[in-house]
């Protein structure tokens, strides 16, 4: 093992009025700040850049360590020297999405018009808006064409959207555990999570900054989220019917089972690290997402020349494999070079964060071939 590598989050601000970012809704947003981190070194030809997109509650801190932290970035097993996204070879970038709460402009940012946090005055954003904002960052870094874009879950949606929006700027892409549109079940689960937050009296129509946080609502929404990120089998393997801190059933409504206390712990810690309004905005953006827009997915990929590796997991019931197979089919109809794999694992949707061996081999080899075809 090499020594831990440290990184600091950087910031890039653009879209100062009167040149605001025009969102898909038509509303203008500006100025916009993007928090981002980079790992590795950009080569002279600027041809080794890889953009990593994070998932719903992720952030720009994808890898390496922040001084004083107890854990490295969220995809550190995948990004680093000698790892799948090898920072000895590639220049890896990860930015916090707009609408987020980890340094990029979002509902908890100060609204320049009022001098107070935006709250619900923040405009509704889409996945497309998030991608457009990241394109501005990549332009700012002077990169004309990315070697690869990758991400799991929402990050996968963004990689697909980038390929469709900017086909000439993306050599290859690895969307993982993702979909091309949010289905009724995915929307329904998000709506339950949103209702949990909005029904917390402390949410106060989004105006809670500086006051008491909607902790209970956030906790419930996170508990639902965590259930959807696991599989029945992974929960059974991890918790079973084990009791937490007691020998026998309590016959009351304090928690008995380990799974209950796990969810409670996850829920309680969530409000400390994530903004409730950001959760509402980002989950809404996900639910609005439909790459096909008018329903014709084959048409959407017309003219896309990106080479794809699409990865799914057998036990992922939140973003099941058949949805990615639809993407593969539409790509094949457009003569797009695509590989598809369904990795057999019990970890559910979370697999993209924890199933490291298989993904590492695939990503490393796929990038090797992609990098060779760029230089040859």
């Amino acid at each position, binding site marked *: 093992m090499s020594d831990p590598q440290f990184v600091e989050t950087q910031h890039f601000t653009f879209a100062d009025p009167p040149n605001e970012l025009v969102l898909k809704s038509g509303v203008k947003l500006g100025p916009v700040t993007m928090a981002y981190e980079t790992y590795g070194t950009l080569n002279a030809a600027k041809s080794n850049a890889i953009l990593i997109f994070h998932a719903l509650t992720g952030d720009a801190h994808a890898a390496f360590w922040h001084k004083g932290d107890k854990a490295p970035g969220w995809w550190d097993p995948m990004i680093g020297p000698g790892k799948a996204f090898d920072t000895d070879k590639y220049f890896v970038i990860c930015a916090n999405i707009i609408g987020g709460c980890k340094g990029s402009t979002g509902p908890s940012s100060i609204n320049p018009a009022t001098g107070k946090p935006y709250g619900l005055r923040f405009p509704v954003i889409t996945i497309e808006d998030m991608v457009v904002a990241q394109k501005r960052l990549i332009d700012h870094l002077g990169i004309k064409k990315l070697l690869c874009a990758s991400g799991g879950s929402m990050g996968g949606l963004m990689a697909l959207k980038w390929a469709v929006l900017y086909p000439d700027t993306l050599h290859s892409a690895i969307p993982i555990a993702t979909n091309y549109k949010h289905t009724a079940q995915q929307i329904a689960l998000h709506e339950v999570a949103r209702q949990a937050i909005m029904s917390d009296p402390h949410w106060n129509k989004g105006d809670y900054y500086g006051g008491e946080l909607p902790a209970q609502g956030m906790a419930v929404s996170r508990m639902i989220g965590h259930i959807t990120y696991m599989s029945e089998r992974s929960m059974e393997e991890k918790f079973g019917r084990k009791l937490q801190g007691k020998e026998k059933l309590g016959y009351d409504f304090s928690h008995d089972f380990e799974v209950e206390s796990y969810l409670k712990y996850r829920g309680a810690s969530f409000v400390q690290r994530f903004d409730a309004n950001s959760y509402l905005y980002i989950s809404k953006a996900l639910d609005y997402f439909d790459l096909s827009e008018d329903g014709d997915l084959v048409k959407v990929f017309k003219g896309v020349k990106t080479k794809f*590796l699409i990865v799914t997991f057998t036990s992922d019931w939140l973003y099941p494999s058949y949805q990615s*197979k639809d993407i*593969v*089919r539409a790509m*094949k*109809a457009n*003569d797009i*070079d*695509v*590989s*598809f*794999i*369904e*990795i*057999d694992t019990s970890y559910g949707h979370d697999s993209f964060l924890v199933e490291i061996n*298989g993904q590492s*081999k*695939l990503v490393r*080899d*796929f990038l090797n*071939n992609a990098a*060779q075809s760029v230089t040859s």
Partner: protein
Amino acid sequence: MRNDHKYILEMIEPNSRVLDLGCGNGELLSLLMAQRNCRAAGIEIDEKEIYKCVERGVSVSHGDIDSGLSDYADKTFDYVILNESLQEVLNPEKVIAEALRVGKKAIVGIPNFCNLNARLQIFFLGRVPVTEGLPYKWYNTPNLRFLSIKDFRDFCLERSIVIENECAFGAGGKIPFAHNLLSDIAIFLIRK
């Protein structure tokens, strides 16, 4: 190079588009890319093999042959290869029809169940034969279908499928005559 790969390479024109159904570790496709400058894609059901394909830079889809062909439009490929995989599919008749729909031509490699060695084993030993082309016991064979070269010729004739080329071989190389009696494996180049 494996004999079957060598003979398939001989049948394929340079710069073709090729789909390999049941492409395994992608070895044949990477040979076609390197030596015939083909644009290649594969379908493979075994997850372990997908990693090897990606390592070789072969584009591959993880799935079964029976359903994987519906993804492609008519005549997408110059050749669709079914090498040592036809005998493992549930519905070979439909797979051949689909292969000849998405491909202008198909290359089908089959183990010959009725060569002299197999016939002798059945006749004198009274047991299901184990041969060069069919190395499995009855209880561990992946094969669902057992056919001879003559059976495949009949199948084509009944469906007006043209056999453009037939290459039969054993461990020692190509067999020039009496294919059905003497060869372990045959590779057919067919078209509708």
